[in-house]
């Protein structure tokens, strides 16, 4: 009977370790997809350049991401976050091999939360500007520029999608790390 109990305990420990390892592998997988999403966003916003086919004597009608400081912040934030994700891949692989690590998981949660806040700030600021560019605002006399710069508007709106996907993945990453911490 005792031998049976020991065997059962051993089997449940093995499955627990298996589940922990599965969670760490899922963590790595999510990180890789988040890298693609944030990098894609940064590149899509960073390569915006639309020149309208007409011009006057004084003004050249051209729209780039660097014309709006908010979009510059968006590109920089997405670049920083994808660089962080690439660096944290190494930490994630370390967690697959050594599931007992606790202090490093807590550090990872802190950096994940901070980077998520940076990403969300950039994405929401750009979303506000894109909304303004689409709709304008009559009270403040801000004209909706999307009516002229159509391709620029499409590009910037599309690049927001990758950023928001990154945010959702960060939330999942924090949840996974917390679960892995609590199960040890």
């Amino acid at each position, binding site marked *: 009977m005792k031998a049976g109990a020991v065997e059962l305990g051993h089997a449940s420990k093995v499955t627990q370790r298996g589940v922990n390892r599965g969670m760490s592998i899922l963590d790595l997988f999510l990180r890789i997809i988040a890298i693609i999403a944030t990098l894609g966003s940064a590149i899509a916003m960073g390569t915006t350049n639309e020149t309208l086919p007409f011009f006057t004597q004084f003004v050249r009608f051209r*729209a780039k991401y660097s*014309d*709006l*400081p*908010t979009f510059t912040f968006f590109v920089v934030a997405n670049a920083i976050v994808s660089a962080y994700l690439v660096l944290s891949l190494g930490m994630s692989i370390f967690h697959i091999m050594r599931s007992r690590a*606790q202090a490093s*998981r*807590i550090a990872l*949660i*802190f950096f994940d*939360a*901070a980077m*998520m*806040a940076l990403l*969300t*700030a*950039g*994405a*929401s*600021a*750009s*979303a*506000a*500007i894109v*909304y*303004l*560019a689409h*709709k304008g*605002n009559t*009270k*403040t*006399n*801000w*004209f909706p*520029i999307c009516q002229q710069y159509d391709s620029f508007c499409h590009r910037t709106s599309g690049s927001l999608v990758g950023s928001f996907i990154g*945010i959702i993945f960060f*939330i999942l990453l*924090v*949840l996974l*790390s*917390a*679960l892995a*911490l*609590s199960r*040890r």
Partner: protein
Amino acid sequence: MEKSESTKIDVVETNKERKGKAPLLGKAPVVAAAVVHAKGGGAKRGIAIFDLILRIAAFASALGAAVAMATTEETLPFFTQFFQFEASYDDLPTFTFFVVAMAIVVAYLVLSVPFSIVCIVRPHAVVPRLLLIIFDTVIIALTTGAAGSSAAIVYLAHNGNQDANWLAICQQFGDFCQRVSGAVVAAFVTVVILIFLVVLSASALRRHH
């Protein structure tokens, strides 16, 4: 069964003879584990109390941000035949989103105080802390979203944009601008406190061995 009985007898004899060099082999690791468990509980209880205090601070900050934004209304002392120079938060949909989002955050922080108290009373409970972490993370995303979008609009209101031909309205509505900027700063303070809360909950989740 027989084994445990024989162990009992051994212990009684050792106690009687007071040759205490041989440790109570069966009991010592159990006692040590219990001491570590209790110590872990003490540290976790301290973390949970700090968590509650920070939660109340974040609630105050978020409430300040929501109220400061919602009570903005400035009417300039002149007007023309067609325009009334008036600014309030619902003129800009982004600010409306800010007020609604901060109201949700305030409601969440109030509702999460009982969970925090449960964590104080039962330091070794895992499920309340896990729930707190995941909901805190989602609320960080919501608060940062509101704060970031309003910060973009406030920046635009302060500086305008030459390429898009957007005028800087702060030059006329000075009081409105100050109020709104203060609300955005309070929202970012809430975000910092929330990140600290998530790290606290994570460090309280670890198992002491």
